[in-house]
């Protein structure tokens, strides 16, 4: 029996705790200047003056207790295993935090003259080179804020490329049916029509299927390798060739790059554009949903299309280059998610070139090990039982009971372990998508497999009343889906 109990505080909302006459921090104010302005609010024109600011009133300790209690009702990587498939919830080294905490970083303003930020620019320049090396691309822009924004940049590059080459009629992007939802969403945002490519019974995309769907309207294809089933796409080179032959460009969704470091590079496979999720593969904290960083890399012939800025190096030192001739433009207000980039750089240096290769080797070994440790009758592989997994494994929950994958997911929470991703990819029924990462010690993988196996027994006995050891029981998500519940009413 699981011995886990998550804290439960019944913590009120901030506004419920508020009492007039309290404040949680002191505000700096130069006494000399303060004395000169008796009624500062009158500096705002009367028609534009704020009447009331309905913020809570709490002491510093009250605020800290509130959020510390909330934190105790939140599961995280540093508490236990968090094998959300496709999210690469690996451990994030503490030294990266210590480095990023310096005022030389925190207090750097993005509009400072470049000669006053040579330190961070030199780090970015090197990071661009590292990412090129890992992916086999020729240049990188670090400016995009997350994977989805990197994807958006990538498809905009394709669009601009075809526009420049007089092929505006190319308005279709091929996306496999196993792809992340962000792929079709990004393509649609860039104005493309999405053409779905079916995967075959082994879970892979065949070049012949791609050939059938290409035409002079094909702008390109977004392809995730290894795919969301955790399988290496064995015809990736042929797929690239088929799309290139049709005049399209190939986009590599780097969400699953944690399987490939030092083993295979998208550039060598034939891809033209790549994005990486630094918060996944390069170990920056996920922050409860973000921030991330989603740099975009391209081959030499596309280097002028990258989103600006990119960091370049000249006689005067490092600088931000906004002058790329065919750039798709900027997608973010300032530079990039710089503090995330710095942490990713630190991670790369902690491991070094061969260490990165070990990361992928051990991540793949862990995924295969965990998969093989599962009860194979209870959790049959969705596709290709005989194939090796890469960074993650997707299994079905064998059950006649609808919602059984969700029941498994809720039941595993009671062990103090996070559930795998559920019901994704969409092409797998009752799917569990398990990505242990290289961070978990062998014993933890054993424990997790044992927990899943034992949970399955309860599920087949028809038990659905999970979870019981978390701070709340099963949440009514239907009731929540009414927009009137989006904020507190005072």
């Amino acid at each position, binding site marked *: 029996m699981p011995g886990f109990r998550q804290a439960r505080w019944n913590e009120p909302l901030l506004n419920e705790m508020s009492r007039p006459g309290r404040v949680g921090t*002191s*505000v700096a104010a130069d006494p000399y200047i303060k004395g000169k302005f008796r009624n500062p609010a009158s500096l705002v024109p009367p028609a534009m003056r704020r009447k009331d600011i309905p913020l809570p009133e709490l002491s510093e300790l009250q605020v800290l207790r509130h959020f510390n209690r909330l934190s105790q009702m939140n599961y995280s990587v540093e508490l236990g295993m968090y094998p959300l498939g496709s999210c690469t919830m690996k451990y994030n080294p503490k030294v990266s935090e210590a480095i990023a905490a310096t005022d030389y970083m925190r207090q750097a303003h993005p509009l400072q003259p470049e000669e006053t930020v040579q330190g961070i620019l030199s780090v970015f320049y090197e990071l661009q080179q590292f990412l090129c090396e890992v992916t086999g691309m020729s240049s990188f822009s670090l400016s995009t804020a997350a994977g989805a924004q990197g994807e958006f940049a990538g498809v905009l590059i394709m669009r601009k490329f075809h526009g420049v080459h007089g092929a505006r009629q190319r308005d279709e992007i091929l996306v496999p049916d196993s792809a992340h939802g962000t792929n079709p969403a*990004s393509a649609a945002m860039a104005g493309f029509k999405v053409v779905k490519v079916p995967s075959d019974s082994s879970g892979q995309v065949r070049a012949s299927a791609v050939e059938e769907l290409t035409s002079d309207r094909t702008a390109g294809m977004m392809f995730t390798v290894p795919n969301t089933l955790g399988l290496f796409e064995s015809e990736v080179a042929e797929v690239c060739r088929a799309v290139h032959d049709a005049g399209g460009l190939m986009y590599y969704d780097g969400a699953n790059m944690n399987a490939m470091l030092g083993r295979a590079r998208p550039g060598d496979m034939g891809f033209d554009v790549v994005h990486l999720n630094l918060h996944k593969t390069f170990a920056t904290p996920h*922050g409860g949903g973000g921030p991330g960083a989603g740099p975009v890399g391209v081959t030499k012939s596309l280097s002028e299309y990258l989103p600006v800025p990119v960091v370049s190096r000249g006689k005067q030192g490092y600088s931000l280059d906004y002058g790329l001739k065919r750039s798709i433009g900027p997608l*973010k*207000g300032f530079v990039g998610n710089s503090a995330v980039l*710095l942490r990713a750089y630190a991670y790369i240096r902690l491991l070094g070139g061969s260490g990165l290769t070990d990361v992928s080797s051990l991540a793949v*070994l862990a995924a295969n090990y965990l998969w093989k440790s599962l009860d194979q009758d209870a959790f049959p592989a969705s596709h290709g039982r005989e194939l090796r997994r890469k960074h993650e494994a997707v299994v079905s929950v064998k059950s006649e009971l609808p919602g059984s994958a969700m029941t498994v997911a809720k039941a595993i929470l009671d062990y103090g372990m996070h559930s795998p991703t559920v019901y994704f990819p969409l092409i797998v029924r009752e799917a569990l998508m398990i990505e242990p990462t290289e961070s978990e010690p062998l014993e933890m993988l054993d424990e997790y497999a044992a927990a899943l196996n034992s949970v399955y027994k309860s599920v087949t006995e028809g038990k659905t009343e999970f979870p019981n050891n978390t701070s709340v029981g099963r949440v009514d998500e239907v009731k929540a*889906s009414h927009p009137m519940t*989006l904020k507190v009413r005072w």
Partner: protein
Amino acid sequence: MKGKHAHPLLPNSDESFVSAMLKKVGAASVDELFSDVPPGLRFRGKLRIPEASPEYFLRRELLTKLSANRTPPATLCFLGGGVWPHYIPAAVDSITSRQEFYTSYTPYQPEISQGMLQALFEFQSLMCDLLGMQACNSSLYDWASAAGEAVRMAGRVTGRKKALVGANVGPGRRKVIETYAEPMGIKTETIGYDTTEGTLDPADLRRKLTDEVACVYFENPNYFGVVEEGAEELTKAVHSRGGLAVVGVDPISLSLVREPGAYGSDIVVGEGQPLGIPMNYGGPHLGLFGVNDIKLARSMPGRLIGLTTAAADPAQKAFAMVLQSREQHIRREAATSNVCTNQSLMALAAASYLSLLGKNGFRTLGETVISNAHFAAERLAKVKGVKSPHFEGHFFKEFVVSYARARSRSVFKRMAKAGVLAGYPLERESGIGAEAGLYCVTEVHTKDDIERLAGALEAAL
């Protein structure tokens, strides 16, 4: 993998673990696990990345490298433009560095993630109150991309293909809006501003307003720091032609300046960075996004957290992600946006920050900021050869200073050399027709700092 040393990040790298695991997997070697990669595609070289660095050497090397950055406290920073120097109470960092928040992810399993969900729900509530909106999402990447999403949303909601954007909007944000809007077939057109006041020209807006206009986007205070006194007139004009009013804000200004919901804004975006988030050379920051009509919530981009109950106990409050059918993981190409990973941690920082300052602290902050900024503008006015402030409109914490005879770019660089970051050059992007720089003064600046700024400017002219 043979003969590997143990590594702090790789608990299974030792040969004994590797061989035990391989045995279970039924493979002779780790390489065999990659045998599905066609031989021609296998990377056989060595990654040209330096070998692993011990923690101490890396820390020493990187801190040495970063110390080449010129930053406060040794250097003074009077830069703004969408990222602003403000003090972050120590308690904010204490909260955001709680690893339970910090190393979690999107709360897909609400039962075990109530802490982050409640914190994000409280962030949404605080934002609704601060912006005067009916619904706010739990974050987008930053102000510029939020503005881009807002213009796209206006296009979706109205079915129209034109956006009017103030010429006194941040030039960087103008470009990002274009990058976001153009693929949707939305054309952007600029509305001019009054070159004396610095505020938008309502006559030019009326001239360009047609039934094709999906939205007008303006900022308040605008890029020049000037409060748009006629904001209500602008939103009324847009509404009269069936378009939406989208307003961008610096949330600190809302301590004294009216909330956009009170003057007719339909969508508010903004930069949450000054709410307890470091400038960090450009990010991660916090894109704010809210709507003034609950019906518009279904067209919003980004994650939304809602208040609900436990299924078995209607008295037990609980939180969950809601209206997910708008989002990419469900709706794919028909989603309202492709956003997945957002800036939740920054939303947590902002919620902590606003709770700490509270009603009175936040107002005091606004009063301090506006006083310091006016004190500085008056002080700089005494420097020979400058006009400070350049515009006559009311301002909050930023203002433009123009130079009679000097080049703004060289003034900027010379002051930086003297240890004062101030006067971001404006002439190229904003067409103000004078050599001028943007100055930002907040609660972090003292009288002495402002004297040093005045001295540096005088010497740089």
